[in-house]
């Protein structure tokens, strides 16, 4: 009757190879790419890192905690305005300003969570969007933030352009890696176990002891702080923010696009989605507004043919898990 039981949380050989390839890709991005592509390309690659962060954080909320927000542009804006204000007016070093802007985003998310968490389902989505509009309106009312015309970053003025672009590039890559790994760590923790349960059935989770509201709040705050990093990165990359550009609902649209085509509820999905989205953006930039039509068609086709996204297709034919979360119980009859 007694059996030796062992619980594992890692993928097989194919997964190890896959993880190895991912590490190589990051190393190439860190060590080879900066010295072998144009400054323009380097700068546009920051957009890829921004997409990875946005997709990962939106997936954390929607895919793991079941919270569909369409107001995350609020935190892009706060992150973008925050980093410029904190660097220029407060005088923080750029890295400190980025981190502080993310902390501000987390604090704002915590405060507004008490408002939007009263709303369920579609009302929650609309509530988050209303909060984003209010934040944008408030921003345009503050003279210190440039009113309706926005802010330009002064801190980098005088710095060598090559050094500036390279700094932002490496910062972007680092932040994307940190956000993905932090999400992975969170999902492997006790909090992650509870979140997955909440996603599948909040009532049953609550009855088994999972603190539903607290877990959701942790995710909302962490995810919004991550979005703040992406906002700060965007501002450092473009050197300028205006209310209409940095509070654009288009950011949230790209988060959703990235997550849907990559695959919701997996760590890998948003990374794949970000790469696909970035390539499409790059290739179709000349199409103008037709570009949006193409994006729409791609989204519809992927959702219809692969409801679990492109990464879902991969895991259907192979057993590759770059970020293994699932527990595997192995039982062997004992010797005695």
């Amino acid at each position, binding site marked *: 009757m007694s*059996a030796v*039981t062992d*619980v594992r949380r890692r993928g097989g050989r194919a997964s190890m190879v896959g993880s190895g390839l991912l590490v190589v890709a990051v190393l190439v991005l860190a060590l080879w790419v900066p010295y072998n592509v144009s400054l323009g390309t380097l700068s546009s690659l920051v957009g890829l890192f921004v997409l990875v962060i946005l997709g990962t954080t939106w997936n954390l909320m929607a895919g793991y905690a079941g919270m569909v927000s369409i107001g995350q542009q609020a935190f892009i804006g706060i992150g973008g305005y925050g980093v410029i204000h904190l660097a220029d007016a407060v005088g923080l070093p750029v890295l400190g300003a980025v981190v502080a802007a993310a902390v501000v985003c987390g604090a704002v998310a915590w405060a507004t969570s008490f408002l939007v968490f009263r709303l369920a389902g579609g009302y929650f989505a609309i509530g988050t969007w209303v909060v984003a509009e209010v934040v944008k309106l408030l921003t345009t009312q503050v003279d210190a933030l440039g009113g309706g015309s926005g802010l330009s970053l002064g801190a980098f003025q005088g710095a060598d352009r090559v050094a500036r672009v390279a700094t932002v590039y490496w910062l972007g890559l680092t932040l994307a890696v940190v956000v993905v790994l932090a999400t992975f760590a969170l999902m492997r923790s*006790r909090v992650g*176990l*509870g979140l*997955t*349960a909440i*996603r*599948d*059935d909040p*009532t*049953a*989770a*609550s*009855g*088994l*002891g*999972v*603190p*539903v509201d607290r877990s959701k709040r942790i995710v909302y705050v962490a995810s919004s702080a991550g979005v703040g990093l992406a906002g700060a990165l965007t501002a450092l990359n473009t050197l300028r923010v205006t209310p209409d550009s940095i509070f654009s609902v288009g950011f949230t649209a790209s988060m959703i696009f990235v997550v849907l085509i990559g695959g919701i*509820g997996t760590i890998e999905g948003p990374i794949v989605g970000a790469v696909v989205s970035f390539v499409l953006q790059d290739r179709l930039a000349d199409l103008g507004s037709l570009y949006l039509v193409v994006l729409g068609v791609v989204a519809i086709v992927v959702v219809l043919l692969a409801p679990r996204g492109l990464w879902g297709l991969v895991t259907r034919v192979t057993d590759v898990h770059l970020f293994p979360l*699932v*527990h*595997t*119980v192995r*039982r062997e009859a004992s010797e005695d």
Partner: protein
Amino acid sequence: MEAPLLRVEHLAKAYGQVVTARDVSFDVAAGEALGVVGPNGAGKSTLLNLVTGTARSDGGTLLLDGQDVTRWSAPRRSAAGVGRSYQVPRPFAGMTVFENVLVGARFGGGHGGREARRLAIDALERTGMAHLANTPAGRLRLLDRKRLELARALATGPRLILLDEIAGGLTDAELPELVALVAELRDAGLAVVWIEHIVHALLQVVDRLMCLALGDVVAIGDPATVMRDPRVVEVYLGSTVDPGPAAAS
């Protein structure tokens, strides 16, 4: 005398015009099993929701081990030792069977990683589900989903366990195993509340029986006496309940 593990006093609950609990009072001691019968819509499942805290009562008091838990949240009650299974199973469909049970051990049970994994495996073995540990819960057939309900509740290490129609659909061979498991839990000192339509299975275990109808306690006490009570018989006239061989004897 020792205080009962669960004491329910003057509990009241209504959904609009539908009264599911009207001045309901009863108690259950540790090491005691209370059976609950009553026609569909009597308010049996809702009563469990009120005790676990996933539904809020309109009035009345709930005492757990003498402590007033009426205002406690569901997670807090789970940590204090209240476990339950749902009549219509609510598995975490995207997680494996093992992970479903692990949630109970880590949260309600409050155990750290290693100990929680051990308790989860233990709960799976006790309910005969260990061979399904790696199956996604969404792929289980109904009977295994019901078993998972029980395993998950056990993994929280409950002092009070509330079972909602877990015997339906079992074969004649499986039924005695379930009855034995419930008896084992009771004998291990748990307080058991078991709602069941398969009365002959229920009567093999329970120390007392309560009959509910339209939110009222019709009768409570010695099982045989309750089953013979004219009011209980009347409640059941024309209903679909299967009194089984025990009632005939």
